């Protein structure tokens, strides 16, 4: 949920406080879940909520405890790299991961790289 929907301004500080308290207290039963929620929520505040309702596969995976999908990304020349992609992964995150593989750590230099989506038999979306 935290990866998908933003909350009201009123609720936000309470929600954050609740999640942070649970996340940082390792004795609490759901501290790991709270940590994930907190990260997802921060992403949602930064980028807005998810545009699309999750697919059945995504829901099934999350329910089974798998937070991320092994998604394939192609590099020029045809080689591929698998990057764990979660509900809250954005394009910038993937570019950052691949740039690190290329030895690039400067965020300004990373801006020179992009991700494209090529559809078989058609143009890229949006």
């Amino acid at each position, binding site marked *: 949920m935290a990866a998908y929907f933003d909350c009201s301004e009123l609720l936000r500080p309470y929600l954050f406080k609740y999640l942070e308290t649970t996340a940082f207290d390792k004795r609490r039963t759901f501290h790991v879940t709270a940590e994930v929620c907190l990260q997802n929520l921060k992403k949602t505040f930064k980028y807005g909520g998810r*545009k699309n309702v999750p697919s059945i596969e995504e829901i099934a995976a999350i329910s089974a405890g798998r937070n991320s999908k092994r998604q*394939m990304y192609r*590099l*020029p020349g045809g080689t591929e790299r698998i990057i764990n992609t979660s509900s809250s992964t*954005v*394009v910038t995150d993937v570019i950052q991961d691949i740039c690190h593989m290329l030895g690039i750590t400067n965020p300004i230099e990373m801006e020179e*790289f992009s991700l494209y989506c090529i559809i078989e038999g058609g143009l890229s979306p949006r």
Partner: protein
Amino acid sequence: MPLNKDEYILDVTTDLIKNGQLFYLIFCRSVWYHPLRLDSHLYIEVIFNQVAPDYLEGLLLVIPEERLPEDVIPQIARIAALLHRAADMEQMPTKEEVKYLLPKPVLVMRELRPPQWVEMVQNNWTDMSALTTIEAKAQCLDILQKWQLFGSCFFAVKRIQSDLSTQPDHILALNREGVHFLDIITHVIIVISHHCLSSLVHSPIASLVF
């Protein structure tokens, strides 16, 4: 068009999977302001694989008045040998193979006849056995990065409303120097605009107005 940096990956893929569409997520360089770093093998691979097709298509070549500049000829011969080595070849390229190692426009140019090209390329081959494929790719990039059109994104342009040219077709090259309209054959710059490059890359080409 590149994906928006703030887009959730799974938002993109969910739509496409739902519609049963086959798709690929492709990573590549779209702005070439920073100098090349030839210290990472994967970096060299990625950049080389992006640049080589444009080079072989002839897009990086500038041939004023359809004549190949003299200083470019030995570079092209050297790059040909490097490309052969980059493809992990261990034998000298044959006459037939040399054809595929040169930029397309070069094959029909009068400056050098095919046997002369073959000889020049084969002469460069002696240096190649000492190189690994990655080193060959890095050396290719090292030569090409000094070329004027290196680091350009190329687009075909069908029509320009301008008094400067009577020819309908041009090539649009976006690079660190700005926006250039090139003659379709010579790649000589006809019109140049020192626009802010990063804002152009992220706006649809259709909205560019000159």
